[in-house]
C-alpha cells in the first residue's frame, strides 16, 4: 500500500507542473474504466474470447509506449490530455443472451462505474446493452456487431466503427461492377441464398434491395434453416435459376453442407460470393480444396500487410501475447478502444456529454487503422463510421487472399470459377 501511495504521490507531484495548462476531469493516477461485454461462455465463447483479446491488445497499446506504431495514442503512455490516465477494461460475460446484455451494461455502469462501453458481438445483445447505456447516458462504441438496425435507431450515445451488413452487401455488388469494368466480365443475374435468422435474413433483404440499383436481376430468392441436414432441393432450385453469380449468407455448418452439395450436383455459376460461414476457422479443414475460389466478405486479412505494414506489426504483438495470429473477430474489436480513448483524450474529461461531442468530431486518418479504410468519421445522424467498408478475400490454394478493393489486393481474383468437373 505504501509503495503504491508514494508512487502515486510522486506521480501527482511530477504532474503538478504540467497540470496548470490542462483542465483534466480525471485525477492523474485515476484509471478510466471501460466496460467490455462479450459472450464468454455458451455456444460461441471462443469467438467472444477472440474479440476480447483484440480489445485487450488495443488497451495495452494505448496504455504503453509504442513509438513505432502509427495508431492513435500508441506513442504516449495513457491519455496525455488527462495526465497520462490509463484505460482499464472491466469485462463481463453476456452468454450471448440479450437480457444479459442489458443487465451487464447496467451493472458495469452503476456498480463498476465504467464511463463507456464497447462490445457485445451478437447484434441482439448489443441492441439491449446499448439501449441500457442510452438510458444511463453513457457512450457506447461498437466495432463488432453487423446488424444494420443498430445504427438506424437514432441513439445519441451509440457509435459504430465497423461496417454493417448493408455495407457488406453493397461492397459485394460494387465488386461485381468493378470486376465487369476491370476484367470485361459480363454479369446480369444473381441469386440470393440466405439462412433465416436475423443475420442471414438481413443480408438477404439488403441484396434484394440493392441488386436492382446496381442493375442486376435477382433470379432466385431462397432462404433456409441454418441447421438443415439436406439442401439438395435448394441447390436444385439454384441450378434451375442459372444465375451468373450466387450470393450466400450462411453460418459455418450450412456453408460446409452447401459446398459439398454444389460439387455433388455440379452447380457452376461464374462466381460464388459469400458471408461469414465461409471464413470461420473450421470451414477450410472441412471442405479442403472444394472451398477454393469462394469469395468471402471480411473486414480484415493478414495479407493486408502487403500494402499496410502496420498490420504486420500489430499481428506480431498479438501473436506474442496470445500465441496465435489475429483473426477477423479480434481485428474488429481492436479498434473500438482507440476510438474511445481518442475521444476521451480530446474531450479532456470522461464526462459523457463531452465525450459524445468529441466522438462526433472524431477524425482518425486511414493510415491509423488496420483496415483499408479512408479513416474513421461518424455520420452525425446515425453515428455510423462513414468510411467503414469491407474487403473481399478469395480462397486460393486453400488460403484466404485479399482480392478487393483492387488497390489493397494481395492477388488477382480468379474469375470465372473453373467448373467442378475441370477441377483436380
Amino acid at each position: 500500500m505504501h509503495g503504491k501511495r508514494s508512487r502515486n504521490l510522486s506521480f501527482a507531484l511530477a504532474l503538478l507542473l504540467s497540470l496548470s495548462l490542462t483542465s483534466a476531469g480525471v485525477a492523474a493516477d485515476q484509471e478510466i474504466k471501460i466496460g467490455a461485454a462479450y459472450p464468454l461462455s455458451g455456444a460461441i465463447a471462443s469467438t467472444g474470447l477472440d474479440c476480447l483479446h483484440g480489445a485487450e491488445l488495443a488497451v495495452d497499446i494505448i496504455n504503453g509506449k509504442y513509438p513505432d506504431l502509427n495508431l492513435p495514442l500508441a506513442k504516449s503512455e495513457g491519455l496525455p490530455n488527462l495526465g497520462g490516465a490509463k484505460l482499464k477494461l472491466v469485462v463481463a460475460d453476456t452468454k450471448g443472451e440479450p437480457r444479459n446484455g442489458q443487465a451487464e451494461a447496467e451493472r458495469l455502469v452503476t456498480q463498476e462505474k465504467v464511463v463507456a462501453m464497447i462490445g457485445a458481438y451478437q447484434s441482439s445483445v448489443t441492441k439491449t446493452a446499448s439501449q441500457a447505456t442510452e438510458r444511463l447516458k453513457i457512450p457506447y462504441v461498437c466495432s463488432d456487431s453487423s446488424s444494420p438496425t443498430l445504427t438506424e435507431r437514432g441513439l445519441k450515445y451509440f457509435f459504430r466503427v465497423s461496417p454493417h451488413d448493408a455495407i457488406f452487401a453493397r461492397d459485394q455488388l460494387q465488386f461485381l461492377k468493378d470486376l465487369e469494368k476491370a476484367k470485361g466480365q459480363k454479369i446480369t443475374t444473381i441469386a440470393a441464398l440466405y439462412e433465416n435468422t436475423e443475420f442471414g435474413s438481413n443480408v438477404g433483404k439488403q441484396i434484394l434491395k440493392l441488386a436492382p440499383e446496381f442493375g442486376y436481376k435477382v433470379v432466385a430468392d431462397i432462404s433456409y434453416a441454418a441447421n438443415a441436414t439436406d439442401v439438395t432441393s435448394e441447390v436444385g432450385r439454384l441450378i434451375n435459376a442459372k444465375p451468373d453469380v450466387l450470393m450466400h449468407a450462411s453460418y459455418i455448418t450450412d456453408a460446409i453442407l452447401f459446398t459439398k452439395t454444389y460439387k455433388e450436383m455440379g452447380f457452376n455459376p461464374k462466381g460464388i460470393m459469400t458471408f461469414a460461414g465461409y471464413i470461420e476457422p473450421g470451414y477450410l479443414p472441412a471442405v479442403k480444396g472444394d472451398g477454393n475460389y469462394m469469395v468471402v466478405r471480411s473486414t480484415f486479412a493478414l495479407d493486408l500487410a502487403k500494402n499496410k505494414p502496420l498490420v504486420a506489426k500489430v499481428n506480431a504483438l498479438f501473436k506474442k501475447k496470445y500465441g496465435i495470429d489475429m483473426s477477423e473477430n479480434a481485428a474488429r474489436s481492436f479498434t473500438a478502444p482507440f476510438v474511445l480513448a481518442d475521444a476521451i483524450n480530446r474531450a479532456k474529461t470522461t464526462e459523457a456529454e463531452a465525450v459524445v461531442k468529441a466522438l462526433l468530431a472524431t477524425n482518425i486518418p486511414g493510415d491509423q487503422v488496420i483496415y483499408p479504410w479512408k479513416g474513421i468519421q461518424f455520420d452525425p445522424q446515425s453515428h455510423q463510421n462513414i468510411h467503414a467498408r469491407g474487403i473481399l478475400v478469395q480462397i486460393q490454394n486453400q488460403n484466404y487472399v485479399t482480392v478487393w478493393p483492387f488497390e489493397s489486393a494481395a492477388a488477382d481474383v480468379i474469375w470465372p470459377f473453373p467448373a467442378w468437373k475441370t477441377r483436380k
Partner: protein
Amino acid sequence: MKKPTVLQAVFYAALLAALLAFPLVVKGTFPTHVMIMVFLFAMMGVAWNILGGYAAMFSFGQAAFFGIGAYTSTILLMNYNVNPWIGLVAGGVLAALMGAAIGIPCSNLRGHYFAIASIAFAEIVRIHFNNWKFVAAAEGLSLPLLPDSLKNFMFHSSKAPYYYIILVFLLLSVLICWYISTNRMGFYLRAIKESHELAKGMGISFVRYRLYAIMISAFLTAMAGTFYAQYILYIDPESVLILPISVQVVLVAMLGGAGTIIGPVIGAAILLPLSEITRVWLGYKGTGVDMMIYGALIMVISAYQPQGVWGYLTSIRRRAK
C-alpha cells in the same frame, strides 16, 4: 389445508415486508435485476407446476406461451397503439386459446409423450415466428420508448416499479396455484395424475380439467412474457421462444419441488442468483467454470433430493417432529 400457525404467519409477513423493502434498501440496479429474474422465473415455474406438478403434464413447451405473450402485447403496442396492460390480457387469452388448441389433441397423451408433443409445439411456434415477416421474423422487435408511467408499463429511471409489478404477478400466480390445489380442481388433477383409469372410473372428466390446467398455465406464462418484453424492450425468437427457456422453467420447478405451491419459488430463488452470480464472478474469464458449477449443483440436487429442495425441507421438518 391447515390454517398457518402464528409463527408461520409472522414468518410470511416478515418475508413479504423484506421483499417489499428490498429495492429501497439495496443499492445498485444489478441486485434488483437478479430479483426481477428470480420472480419472473418463479412465476413461470408456478405456472408450469399447475401443469407438471399437479396434472402430470410435463410441458417442455412453456417458451411458446412466454413468446406468444411477449409478441402479442408488443405487436399490439407497436402496430395498433394498444396499451401494454390490455396487451397483457390479450396475450394471456391468446396463449390460453393456443393451449386449449393443442390441449385437446394432446391431453390424452401421458408422461413422455406429452413432453415430446410440447417440445414439438414450441419448436413449431419458434420456427414460424423466425420466418414470419409480420413480426419482423428473425430481426426481432424493439419496443418504442414511452415516458415513465404505470399506464405505459415502462420505467426508465428505476427498476423498482418493475420489481413490484413482477412481485405482484408472482403473488397472484401463487394464490391461483394455492386456490387450485385446495379446491376440487386440484383434487381432480391429483386423481388424474395417480391413475387415468381410476379418475375416469370416478367420473372425472379428465380432458376438461387438464384443459383448464393448460389454459391457466398458458395465461400466467404469457403474462410473464409481456413483462419480459416491457422490461427488456427488445424481443426476438432467439430470446423468448427457444427451448432453453422451457427447460429452465422445468428446472426451477423440479429443483424447488414439483407439486408443491412454494417449490418453484424456492427453485427460482436458488437457480437464478446462482447462474447470475457465477456468471458475474467467473464468466468474464471465459473458462466456462460458471456453467460447470451450475450444472454440478443441478446434478447433486437431482441425484440426492429428487423431491426438490422444498421436499427436503419438509422431510427434515417431519423427522424433527
